[in-house]
């Protein structure tokens, strides 16, 4: 076994260890904390590079390192393990690189926060669990890291816990993802029970995925398990209808949003579907569900983003939408396309979030784009990098998003079937979504960088320091370059990740889709540019869309009232049910049942007391009082005077004498 496979666990353990050490550091020790965390992360990154090199050198076969967690029953074991294959190698690079950059960015971003030490601790905990998630060779270990990732997300969303909105958001994030996790958990139980092992791959090809791939589970069981596992992915990756937590998660510090709620953790759902792909492929219906959910989410979230004012919320809905694209990509059978988009998206979305962090930091924590403006002149570097990120996200030709989105749309096109028009839906939704994406990003850039400063913060904004601009630089470079890994016709990524899957030929159809979508994006950018220029960017002006379509804008701004709907139905029902159960406990079970039976006992005891009083005590008492009376009469004998006693004694003796004399003579 190559050393890197054997020591793969070190990649995850180092950040965990760093988190443990920083957990014990006192508040003022922020610099050592940052140093420890960044140091551990750098080593993890280097090890990830070694892992990548190993995969490139030795091909695509999964290499595993398994161990027994514990033993039970008759020679049964629960086994865990670590896995190195192209998918985990790719994820290792993404997670460790973005984490490293975000850690460096945080040094600048959090320099005024008194709890920075704790912040680095949580970040490191997150990185460790995320790395463990991507290298786990066991569904159980994956679920364990999955939950730990959820925990660190919870802690980081609520990092500014004193804000009520943050306190609510952290709880919401954990609970909503946990709803999906219940399905995931049951799926794990079923998959484990069905295949008899938690391991994905083993040396003797008896891993659960290998068993599943052979179709040994049966198509309907495979479908049920896939859908249950997809529940977990929907929760984590913010797919409709479990997307509600992700925009609220923006309450956390911006580096957190960049790392966890844009680049890595939310992609874990997509990764999970990718990891379980052999299972999903057993029954095509599972993939269809994934495709439709993804396509719907992609369009749904993109429309909401058009009407938001908070710079981070726009990006959050954009993330939800892009995650929908990835899911759609996986669902339509484009295994590589979905994961390729995950790869490129991680970099440009991290760039956008860190860029927005830089802006927010410069504007003294102002997040409303209506109060920004004119930052182009004051923050050159940030503007350039943010622009690159925007172009990559919108799918502007030759930027990273262009290639990956194109792959997705191509896959969605080939998804169509002759049986039903419904199979065109992913393609159509994807196309419209792309136009919306280009539009809302242009709107945002125009609001933030152009026109005049409309707020206190924006007026005094200045460029951020090098610890913040350096990560932006690296990410910007990656946002431009990574796309070329998937250059049509010379698809390196495809050869790397899925050499066994069939690539769609780069033919006339592909070329026309590419041109069509590019033109659509360019038109959307142009119209966005036109709509949001001139007087619109002055202070106090209303959004032109709001002016034109006030009702539609209000619905979008309120996110289709999904939150309100949940509040009124699911939440209200659960709370009412809980209260009902509590009252049932107090009044029916404890009241009627327990106190009722004790009342019966009490009444019985009253009856028996009455019986006692009347029948038994009555006779007894009478006897007692008679005796008492008799005793009272006889009392005078005992008057306590010894002479008196003596008198009585003498009388008695005399009496005895008389008797003796009288009777004795006879």
């Amino acid at each position, binding site marked *: 076994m190559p050393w890197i496979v054997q020591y793969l666990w070190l990649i995850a353990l180092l950040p965990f260890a760093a988190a443990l050490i920083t957990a014990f550091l006192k508040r003022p020790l922020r610099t050592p904390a940052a140093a420890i965390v960044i140091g551990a992360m750098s080593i993890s990154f280097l090890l990830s590079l070694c892992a990548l090199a190993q995969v490139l050198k030795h091909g695509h076969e999964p290499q595993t390192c398994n161990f027994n967690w514990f033993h039970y029953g008759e020679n049964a074991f629960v086994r865990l393990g670590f896995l190195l294959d192209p998918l985990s190698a790719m994820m290792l690079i993404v997670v460790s690189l973005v984490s490293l950059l975000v850690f460096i960015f945080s040094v600048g971003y959090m320099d005024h926060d008194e709890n920075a030490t704790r912040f680095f601790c949580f970040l490191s905990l997150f990185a460790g669990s995320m790395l463990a998630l991507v290298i786990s060779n066991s569904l159980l270990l994956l679920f364990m890291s999955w939950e730990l990732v959820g925990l660190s997300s919870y802690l980081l969303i609520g990092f500014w816990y004193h804000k009520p909105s943050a306190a609510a958001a952290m709880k919401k994030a954990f609970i909503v993802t946990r709803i999906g996790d219940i399905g995931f958990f049951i799926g794990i139980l079923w998959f484990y029970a069905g295949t008899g092992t938690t391991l994905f791959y083993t040396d003797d090809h008896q891993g659960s995925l290998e068993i599943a791939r052979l179709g040994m589970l049966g198509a309907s069981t495979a479908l049920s398990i896939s859908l249950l596992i997809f529940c977990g992915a929907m929760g984590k990756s913010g797919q409709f209808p479990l997307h509600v937590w992700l925009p609220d998660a923006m309450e956390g510090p911006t580096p957190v949003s960049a790392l966890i709620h844009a680049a890595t953790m939310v992609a874990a759902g997509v990764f999970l579907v990718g990891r379980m792909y052999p299972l999903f492929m057993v029954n095509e219906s599972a993939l269809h569900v994934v495709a439709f959910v993804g396509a719907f989410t992609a369009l749904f979230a993109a429309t909401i983003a058009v009407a938001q004012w908070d710079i981070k919320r726009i990006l959050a809905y954009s993330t939800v939408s892009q995650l929908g694209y990835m899911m759609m990509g996986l669902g339509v059978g484009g295994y590589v396309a979905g994961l390729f988009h995950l790869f490129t998206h991680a970099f440009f979305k991290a760039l956008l979030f860190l860029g927005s962090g830089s802006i927010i930091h410069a504007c003294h924590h102002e997040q409303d784009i209506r109060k920004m403006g004119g930052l182009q002149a004051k923050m050159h570097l940030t503007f350039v990098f943010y622009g690159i990120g925007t172009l990559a996200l919108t799918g502007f030709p030759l930027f990273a998003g262009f290639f990956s989105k194109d792959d997705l749309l191509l896959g969605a096109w080939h998804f169509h079937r002759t049986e039903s028009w419904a199979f065109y839906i992913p393609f159509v939704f994807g196309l419209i979504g792309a136009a919306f994406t280009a539009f809302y990003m242009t709107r945002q850039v125009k609001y933030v960088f152009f026109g005049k400063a409309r707020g206190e913060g924006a007026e005094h904004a200045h460029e951020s320091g090098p610890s913040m601009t350096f990560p932006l630089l690296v990410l910007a470079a990656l946002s431009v370059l990574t796309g070329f890994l998937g250059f049509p016709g010379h698809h390196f990524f495809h050869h790397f990740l899925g050499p066994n899957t069939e690539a769609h030929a780069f033919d006339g159809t592909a070329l026309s889709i590419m041109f069509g979508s590019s033109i659509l994006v360019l038109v959307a950018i142009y119209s966005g540019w036109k709509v949001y220029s001139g007087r619109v960017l002055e202070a106090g002006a209303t959004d032109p869309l709001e002016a034109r379509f006030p009702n539609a804008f209000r619905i979008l701004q309120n996110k289709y009232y999904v939150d309100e709907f949940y509040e009124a139905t699911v939440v209200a029902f659960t709370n009412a049910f809980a209260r009902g159960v509590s009252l049932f406990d107090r009044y029916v079970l404890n009241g009627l049942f327990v106190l009722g039976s004790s009342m019966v006992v009490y009444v019985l005891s009253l009856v028996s007391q009455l019986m006692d009083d009347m029948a038994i005590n009555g006779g007894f008492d009478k006897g007692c009082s008679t005796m008492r009376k008799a005793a009272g009469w006889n*009392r005078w*004998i*005992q*008057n*306590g*005077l*010894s*002479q008196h006693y*003596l*008198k009585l004694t*003498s009388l008695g003796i005399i009496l005895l004498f008389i008797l003796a004399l009288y009777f004795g003579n006879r």
Partner: protein
Amino acid sequence: MPTLSDYLVLSAILFSIGLAGALTRRNTIIILVGLEMMLNAANINLVAFWHFLPPSPTGQMFALFAIAIAGAEAATGLALVIAVYRHYRSVNAEDISNLKG
């Protein structure tokens, strides 16, 4: 020569005087004196019977014993009277009625 019954009558008279004293007087010390008289009446009886009945030393021995015990009894009795006096500040028998039921 006095006969046995003379002695017995004397003893009975003495005993009755003693009993009367013990029962009627309030002063505890006089009561004790009464008791002592009753004891000595009994002694006279004993000695008289010894003298008039066939020879056996029992009666005389009994009388001697009774005298010795009477001495001890007088001592104990007086000690009790003193103790009672200390406690109740009185030697009046009627004041001491703690045994009253």
